[in-house]
Every structure is written in structure tokens, then in C-alpha cells.
């Protein structure tokens, strides 16, 4: 049985670093661990043993139980096409100019690809734990919704909208004489483009059965996953965190809310007197920041249930294994409690 930890949150809150740290903690406790990561900073990638740019899993040179792989939506989608479509259709799909766009630009595309990678790895039976750093869109909620959205997209939703009804045969889609709307669209976009899109959407439908089945298994895995929701007390990431909690499907687990870059509450009203005026002024302004953070966390506690972890604000982002481990230790402890 593979345990899954899903790490969600807005961009820029330290999600990728914390995912790596959770992976280090898991490996140190003897679990064969895979971290699926998105766009790590170069020095973090190096610490994880991810110096090459492929999306294969690589073992960590210092910690043998820790493996890491980069999530690459384009590469994953090539694998998805070959997995779910007949060979000749798959070849056509991956060379279609719109394929890359769906893989990387369609909001659910990158998230679905990450979900499929997760399912592949979990079902391989290789791992005790898989840690997934979710692609940064809408604070991670996208990741939970992507399987369903992808199924409906591949199932022809866009085709239906384009043709205003049932999915037609290949010839009738381009019967522009019958559809003034298509004739106009043709004028706006140019006929070739419209045909390319149509071809692409028809080919994509070949992957429907595979993607529908896989979506079910991804959804099943997500129901059993532990969730770590990373945020700071800044307004924008906090709003995304609230959205994640409010919109998560009811059958997923309550996330461990992790406030990164936390300041100690003891700075709010320190009792010691500070003689050096510059240091007194400095403590006062950081105290104001600490007070704001405290109020935000109190407000969160008043309106949300579930575990909360505070991670101390560090001057530099950890990017060596011991520092990653010590950063994520409190999150790891909360994950162990929840098991």
C-alpha cells in the first residue's frame, strides 16, 4: 500500500520546498519515497538529485530511499497519448500543433497529467510513499477537479460547442454552408486552423475510454491522500487556501494547513527593554508583522477546523537535505498524527 501526500497551495509560498522536505523526512524514517515535483529552483533540484531535465525518477545521491522526478506536462501528455490511443492516432496527436497547447495551456491539462503520473507511480507498487507537489493553478483545487474536467473535454465538450449540438462525423463538422456560425468563424480564424482544431479534437476522442478509466482511479487515490495545504498570511495565498478548503470534494481528507514564514508571537509585545534604538525600532516593526500574522491565524482557527502547523520564517530558502528535513519536520509530525 502506497501512502500519498498531496501538497497544495498558491505559487510562491514554499510548496515545492516543503514537498521536498516531507520527502526527506519520509525517506529518513525508512520509507521508499518518491517526490513528484514541479519547477524546483535550481539549487533545490540539485539537492534532490534532479540535475538532468528528463521526467524520470532519480535516486538521491545522499539518501538512497529518496527518489524524485520532475513533473513535465508535455512529456506526460505524450505518454498519455501513447497509453490510451492506437499507435497511429497517438503519433498524429503528438505532432498536432494544438497538442502542446492542451498539455500545457488548458488549465486542467497540466494538473491532469500530474494526476496520471501520480496514479502510474502509486499503482506501480514501487513506493511506500508518493509526495505530489501540485502544479500552481488556483491554489491546487484544480488538481482535484482536473480528472473530471479532462474527461468531459476529451469526451467532446468543445466539439459539441463548436458544432452546436451532438458530435458530428468528420465531414459534417466542416459543412460550413449549413452553419453560418462556422462560416464566420472561418473568416475570423482562417479555414485551415479550424480544420486542424477539428482533426485534433476528433483524434483526442480516441483517448476517451483510457482517460475516463484513469480519471476514476485518480479520484480514488485522491480520496485516500493526506493533504498538506501550504500558505502564508498574505491576503492572496490565504484566499486561495480558503478556496481550496471550501471547494474540496467532501470525500477528500481535511488538509494540514501549514503557515509558512511564520514569526513568533513573542515578538508582538516583547517585555524586555531594548536599549539600542535601531534594534528597538527593528523589533517594533517586525512585531507589527508578527501581530498581523497572529491575528490572521486566529481568524483562520475561528473559521476552519483541522490541524495547523506553523513553520518559522527563515532568512534563506533551505536547499540541503538536513535543512529541508528540519523545515518540514513539524508537517511530518502532523502527518504521522493523522495516520
Amino acid at each position, binding site marked *: 500500500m502506497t501512502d500519498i501526500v498531496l501538497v497544495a497551495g498558491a*505559487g510562491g509560498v514554499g510548496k515545492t520546498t516543503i514537498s521536498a522536505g516531507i520527502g526527506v523526512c519520509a525517506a529518513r524514517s525508512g520509507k521508499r519515497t518518491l517526490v513528484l515535483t514541479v519547477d524546483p529552483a535550481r539549487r533545490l533540484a540539485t539537492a534532490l538529485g534532479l540535475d538532468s531535465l528528463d521526467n524520470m525518477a532519480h535516486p538521491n545521491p545522499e539518501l538512497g530511499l529518496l527518489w524524485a522526478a520532475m513533473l513535465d506536462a508535455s512529456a506526460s501528455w505524450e505518454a498519455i497519448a501513447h497509453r490510451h490511443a492506437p499507435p497511429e492516432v497517438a503519433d498524429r496527436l503528438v505532432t498536432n500543433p494544438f497538442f502542446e*497547447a492542451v498539455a500545457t495551456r488548458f488549465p486542467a491539462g497540466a494538473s491532469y497529467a500530474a494526476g496520471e503520473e501520480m496514479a502510474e507511480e502509486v499503482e506501480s507498487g514501487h513506493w511506500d510513499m508518493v509526495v505530489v507537489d501540485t502544479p500552481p493553478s488556483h491554489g491546487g483545487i484544480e488538481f482535484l477537479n482536473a480528472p473530471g474536467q479532462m474527461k468531459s473535454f476529451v469526451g467532446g465538450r468543445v466539439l459539441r*460547442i463548436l458544432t452546436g449540438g451532438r458530435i458530428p462525423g468528420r465531414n459534417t463538422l466542416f459543412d460550413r454552408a449549413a452553419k453560418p456560425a462556422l462560416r464566420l*468563424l472561418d*473568416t475570423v480564424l482562417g479555414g485551415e486552423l479550424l480544420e486542424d482544431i477539428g482533426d485534433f479534437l476528433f483524434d483526442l476522442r480516441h483517448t476517451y475510454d483510457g482517460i475516463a478509466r484513469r480519471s476514476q482511479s485518480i479520484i480514488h487515490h485522491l480520496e485516500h491522500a493526506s493533504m498538506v495545504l501550504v500558505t502564508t498570511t498574505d491576503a492572496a495565498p490565504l484566499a486561495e487556501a480558503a478556496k481550496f478548503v471550501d471547494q474540496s470534494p467532501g470525500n477528500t481528507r481535511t488538509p494540514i494547513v501549514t503557515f509558512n514564514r511564520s514569526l*513568533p508571537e513573542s515578538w508582538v509585545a516583547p517585555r524586555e527593554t531594548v536599549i539600542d534604538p*535601531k*534594534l528597538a525600532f527593528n523589533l517594533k516593526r517586525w512585531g507589527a508583522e508578527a501581530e498581523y500574522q497572529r491575528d490572521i491565524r486566529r481568524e483562520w482557527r475561528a473559521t476552519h477546523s483541522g490541524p495547523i502547523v506553523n513553520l518559522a520564517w527563515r*532568512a534563506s530558502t533551505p536547499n540541503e537535505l538536513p535543512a529541508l528535513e528540519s523545515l518540514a519536520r513539524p508537517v511530518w509530525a502532523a502527518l504521522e498524527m493523522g495516520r
Partner: protein
Amino acid sequence: MDPFDARLLIVTGKGGVGRSAAAAAFALAAARQSKRVLAVAMTDSSGLAAHLGRTSLTYKPKQIGPYLFGLAIDRARALDEYLKLQLGIGTRAPLLPIARSLEAMAETVPGIRDVITIGKVLFEVQSEEWDLVVADGPPTGQIMSYLRAPRTVAGLIPGGRARRQADTMAETLASADSALAMVTLAEELPVTETLEALAELQAENPIRVSGIWANRVIEPLGVSETSLEEVASLAARNAGLLHRGLYENQRRWRKHLPDHGRLPFLFGVHGPARVASLLADEIVT
């Protein structure tokens, strides 16, 4: 660097660096100089709205302060307007199905979403109603695709009115009247992304870059090593160490950036409207 030496200022930045706050600050600062300013949200409008002290922005420009107007781009309506006004497709044509089809395709086809959005911004610039249009733009990772969109579309369409429109858009973006401001944090990932985008911008030149702005900059602590070590209060020492560490790290990453403006870290200030107003003070001085 004068951020207001243009009639269009597009603001970009990686998610989480404070792009919308900076865009609102630019708009406020220009309005304070009695310029008639339109602030436009190109993608998600909630951030810009909050920083301008509003809960939402409308598609129709609405006054939100002295000399200051706000607008949020609604892609479906922008598309409708594009078809009617820009391409001259008559109102009797069945626009709704086309708009819906294009909406659906805008999710997938590169260039369409982008050209409609940037098209609306340029339409407002051309309307001559505004001294300055400040656009809270897409994140740095997507900015090239938006800026390339007019050329991409022009390349797809052999001729006719849509082609001429696309060409005009590309020309307006490349003219001296348009500028791009890049907002970043002095941290590894946003600095790396900014430098990558800069290299692409210099290679393709779809728009000139009028400024790079480091946000949440920490100034030096100004306290000697010994007084920091000898201070009796643990809180004061730790706050000092954190401050100094952040300053050193930021300075290291700022060295990678070309000439840039600085927007300060605002201790304890987080109300979005207040943040924008304080940043606007910094931009003017």
C-alpha cells in the same frame, strides 16, 4: 526610470510577487499627477480590484477615484466587441454561437485568448480617452504568449480586416507609446524567471521594457555585528538576525538583476488598498 513615459504600461510578474499591488500603485501614482488613468485587469481581476479598494471591477470603465478608472476584461464581451467593432461583423450575424465557439477554443488554441485580451487593452489605448492605461497583466510565464499573440494571429490569417487589425495591434505594442514593467521579488525563482523573460523580450522585441521593480525589498539593518550579538533581548536579536539574513539574501539576488527600482517591504501593512497607496508614494518620489 519613469514608469509613466508611455500611454500603455503593462505590468507583469510571477504569481505571488505583488504584481497586482504594483499595477494598482502605478495607476494611483499617475492619477495623483492628474493623469486620466484607466487600470485594466487582464486576467483574474480580484487582486487589482482589492488593491484599488473595490470588491470588483466592471467591463465598462467605471470611475473609482480622482482621475482614476477601472475595468476588468470579460473575455466573452471583449470577443463580442472585437467581432463587432474591430472586424466589422454586423450585429445581425449570429454572434452568440461564434462567441461561444471561440470561448471554447480560447481554452485550447494558442493566441486566441491572448489576442482578444490584449486587443481590448489596445482598443482602450486607441480610444484617446486616457492619458495612461495601466494593465495588470498575465504572469511572467505567460507574458510572451500574450505579447506575441497579434503576430501569431497575423501569421495565421492571410489577409483582410482581421489581418490588418492584428498588424495594427503588433505595431502599437512595439511603438514608443507602450511599455512593460516587470515586478519581481529578490529571490531565486522570480529573479530567474524575470531574467529568462527579459532575454526573450530582447530577442523578439514585441514591446520595450521600461522598468524592472524589486518588490518587498528589505533595507540594511544598520547595526554592527557586536551590538546585534550583545543585545540582551532574545526577540530583538532574532528579529535582527532575520532582518539581516533576509537583506543579505535579497542583495545577492538583486545583483543578478539589471538596473531596477525598489518597492519596500511594508511591515505589518497588508490591507490591499493601503499597500497600493503606500507603494504609490514610493513610485512618485
